[in-house]
């Protein structure tokens, strides 16, 4: 019986307690009561009943007996009393189904069936082989172990959960699933049965149980045959070329999971048009890589495809969404555009529009402006770089110096990052008056000559003209302008990376100096994902397909996690582990469930007691008595007839 795991003695004790309670309530109920009535005359006229001397005398023994019988029957029904032999205490088994992505592979010659179909079939066979009263917890295992049922004795519910199990998108983490099963049996409180793993045993190399705890002694392994040849894409990474920002450098890797060498073509397409192809030679269990370059500033969909047929087509194709190259529109107000043109046209991320000083507008259609050598009528409404402005411009002049040497760069600020040149000699420069909140980027002995103002709109003021002096041949000059533009519009110059991979754990190298608070990992739905940052390696986990964006300082990476994660290694159970579906338990003579009939009988007995002895049902009782009248009349008629 499964009655709160009580033994028969405990059920009897419970029954005794309930019976005692019923008797006490009965005696209390039948105890003498004071009742106010309209008259006593008819009691006096009727036969005078004898007063009782013992209060505890049972006045309606049949009522009490019926109540006790009814409660006993109901208790036995709740206890699921069965008639027939049965085994001892049932076992609690944990059934781990492999629902990793590999279970979506198709076995050749199986008529299109997936491996998960075999897993389900084996699971059903195992459940049917168990003794009837054993309980089973179903656990679905991929990268995470997820219980589908509690310890359940209903075979219908277990089979329904088995039928609803489907292949996931991540690789199997068997060690975690086994540990989960062990803990479930430990805290379940029942008698631990087997831990059964049904699957192909293909696991991620990092998740092999051999390196962790030993396999549990009660483990049973039911292998699903998977002689499937498969080669698939492992990873694709794209990043802007440092030398040519309008060019994507593409890296693709593929792996052969089979046992036969394979040569397969890899094609790359962008926006539906082919942009490259390679022939990959994949040794058994080995990987091959290919690199491509794609010159484009437009947005579009990049597709990489292995052109072949195998048993697992889900990892033969990956698509990535590439963002457009962002540009910074710069309005350049200068009387000498030829001097600045080489500086501004070297970077495709800049789009310069040259205009004369008399065409000046405070807010042109641009993202930033350069004001070269004149003082505009109205201050700019955009971020601006001022080159050698006259006195009375954005900053006042302290003095003008000749042949001054630059002695100090503010390398700690992004505007001075990488600038350390001390051999700049400025033929003529204005020493600027910097406020307390202004940033001194470069200084001479006489004072600052490059000053930046962080308040919007931002401004960078150069007290000299680097483009029309020998400084234009210095390497530091384009670096200075690059720093200035990056500081004014950091979003445009952010380093972009796009990668395609599989769901599960993702690792990404960052600068070691990147503080964790500058990192943000967000799923495409907007939800942030937890991550760790250790020794410059960012690690996070995504169990669902989708796009995850990582933002870290001036770097932005987009991970398109659409490839299924396929385990590279095959788990082999240690010796001694039981294998295969066990033979069906010895068939017990069919036990007959008595509890429905007991419940019915208990309810019936209590109903009869209520009809016969209940207080509030005098009308019902009269009805019953009226129903019995013909029977009584018939009995009396038969008596009279026999007497006559």
């Amino acid at each position, binding site marked *: 019986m499964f009655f709160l795991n009580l033994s028969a003695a405990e059920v009897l004790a419970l029954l005794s307690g309930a019976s005692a309670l019923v008797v006490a309530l009965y005696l209390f109920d*039948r*105890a*003498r*009561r*004071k*009742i*106010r*009535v*309209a*008259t*006593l*005359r*008819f*009691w006096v*006229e*009727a*036969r*005078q*009943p*004898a*007063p*009782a001397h013992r*209060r505890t005398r049972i*006045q*309606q023994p049949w009522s009490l007996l019926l109540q006790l019988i009814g409660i006993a029957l109901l208790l036995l029904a709740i206890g699921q009393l069965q008639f027939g032999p049965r085994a001892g205490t049932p076992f609690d088994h944990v059934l781990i189904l492999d629902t990793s992505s590999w279970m979506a592979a198709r076995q050749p010659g199986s008529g299109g069936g997936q491996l998960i179909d075999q897993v389900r079939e084996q699971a059903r066979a195992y459940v049917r082989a168990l003794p009837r009263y054993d309980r089973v917890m179903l656990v679905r295992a991929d990268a995470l172990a997820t219980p589908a049922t509690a310890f359940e004795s209903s075979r219908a519910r277990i089979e329904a959960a088995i039928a609803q199990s489907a292949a996931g998108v991540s690789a199997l983490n068997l060690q975690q699933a086994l540990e989960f099963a062990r803990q479930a049996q430990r805290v379940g409180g029942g008698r631990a049965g087997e831990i059964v793993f049904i699957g192909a045993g293909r696991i991620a190399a990092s998740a092999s149980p051999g390196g962790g705890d030993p396999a549990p002694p009660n483990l049973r392994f039911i292998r699903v045959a998977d002689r499937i040849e498969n080669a698939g894409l492992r990873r694709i990474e794209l990043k802007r070329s440092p030398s040519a920002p309008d060019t994507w450098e593409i890296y693709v890797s593929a792996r052969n999971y089979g046992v036969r060498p394979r040569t397969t073509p890899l094609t790359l397409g962008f926006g539906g048009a082919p942009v490259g192809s390679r022939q990959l030679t994949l040794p058994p269990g080995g990987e091959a890589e290919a690199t491509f370059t794609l010159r484009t500033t437009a947005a579009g969909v990049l597709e990489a495809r292995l052109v072949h047929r195998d048993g697992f087509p889900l990892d033969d194709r990956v698509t990535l969404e590439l963002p457009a190259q962002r540009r910074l529109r710069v309005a350049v107000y200068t009387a000498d555009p030829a001097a600045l043109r080489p500086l501004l046209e070297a970077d495709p991320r800049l789009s310069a529009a040259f205009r004369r000083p008399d065409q000046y507008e405070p807010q042109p259609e641009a993202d930033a402006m350069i004001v070269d050598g004149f003082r505009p009528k109205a201050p700019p409404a955009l971020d601006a770089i001022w080159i050698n402005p006259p006195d009375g411009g954005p900053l006042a002049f302290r003095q003008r110096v000749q042949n001054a040497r630059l002695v100090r760069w503010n390398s700690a600020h992004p505007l001075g990052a990488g600038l350390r040149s001390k051999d700049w000699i400025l033929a003529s420069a204005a020493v600027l008056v910097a406020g307390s909140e202004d940033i001194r980027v470069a200084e001479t002995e006489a004072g600052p000559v490059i000053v930046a103002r962080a308040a919007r709109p931002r401004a960078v003021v150069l007290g000299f003209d680097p483009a029309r002096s020998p400084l234009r041949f210095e390497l530091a000059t384009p670096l200075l302008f690059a720093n200035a533009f990056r500081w004014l519009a950091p979003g445009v110059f952010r380093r972009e990376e796009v990668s395609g991979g599989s769901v599960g754990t993702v690792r990404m190298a960052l600068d070691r100096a990147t503080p964790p608070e500058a990192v943000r990992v967000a799923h495409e739905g907007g939800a942030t994902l937890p991550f760790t940052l250790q020794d410059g390696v960012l690690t996070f986990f995504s169990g669902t397909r989708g796009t995850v964006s990582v933002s870290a300082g001036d770097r932005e990476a987009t991970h398109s996690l659409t490839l299924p994660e396929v385990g590279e290694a095959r788990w082999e159970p240690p010796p001694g582990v039981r294998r295969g579906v066990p033979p069906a338990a010895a068939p017990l003579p069919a036990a007959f469930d008595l509890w429905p009939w007991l419940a019915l009988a208990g309810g019936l007995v209590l109903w009869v007691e209520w009809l016969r*002895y209940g*207080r*509030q049902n*005098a*009308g019902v009782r*009269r009805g019953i008595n009226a129903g019995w009248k013909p029977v009584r009349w018939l009995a009396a008629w038969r008596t009279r007839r026999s007497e006559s």
Partner: protein
Amino acid sequence: MATAPLLDRQFLERLERLTIHWHKSFPGLVGGHNRSQFAGGGQEFLDHRHFHHGDDLRAVNWRAYLRLEKLFLKMFQVEPRVPVRLLLDVSASMAAPRPDKFWYARRLAAALCYVGLVRLDTIVLQPFADGLGERFLCGGGRHRFSPAVAYLTGLEARGRTGFLLSVREFLSRYSQRGLLMVISDFLDEDGCEKPLQYLADFGHELVLVQLWAEEDRSPPWAGELDLVDAETGQQVRLQVDDAARREYTQAFDTYAASLQRLAERAGGRYLGVAADRPLEEVMFGGLSRAGVVE
């Protein structure tokens, strides 16, 4: 329960089709709706008689005189207004063991009162216990019903039942005979048969409505009981079983039958009403079949 209206509007609308009827002929003011066997100034022709000195010449049958040369007088059937009195038991037994019975009695009295008011009868609501209480006279149409309801709602059940005292007082207070409806449980320790007989002998037409609660007729209790009389406070300790209950019910039914015999012997009517019966069923069923209302 006391705050609920005694009768709802739909029920009152149905009551408007009823009329209170009596069987005896009573003298009274002309203008009622029940025919009397007395001759008088009515509309319906009753008989002829010889003319006597002093008779109203307007009633002489002049056609008969021309033919027979004798004076005959036409007699007409009178339709008098007869006082309808309603004796309502307000003793403590009416509220025992539950107040439903007294509530039901007041609702029944209100319904009869409304029927009478609609037909322009004059109704006297006369409560009694061990004597007559303060009466309430209502007449003149349905708009006088609200005060009657307020009066009935304000009644309380208390005191012992004293039919003899009450009847004596009644006979001395009301000399004019009429229809007398008694709504009571008729549970008087001293017996109520004799006083009721007095009323009948005095010439009143009796309508006895015996009310009982289910517990009054078929007590559901079993086992050891301390029974307390609601009126006298007398206490009896009994061991009650099925046989005792059966005999109790039998004694009750015998008493009810004796009341019925008394009423019928006196030319009146009797109706036994269980307080759990719908009032509508009593008004349109029991009382209608008994000819109290039609």
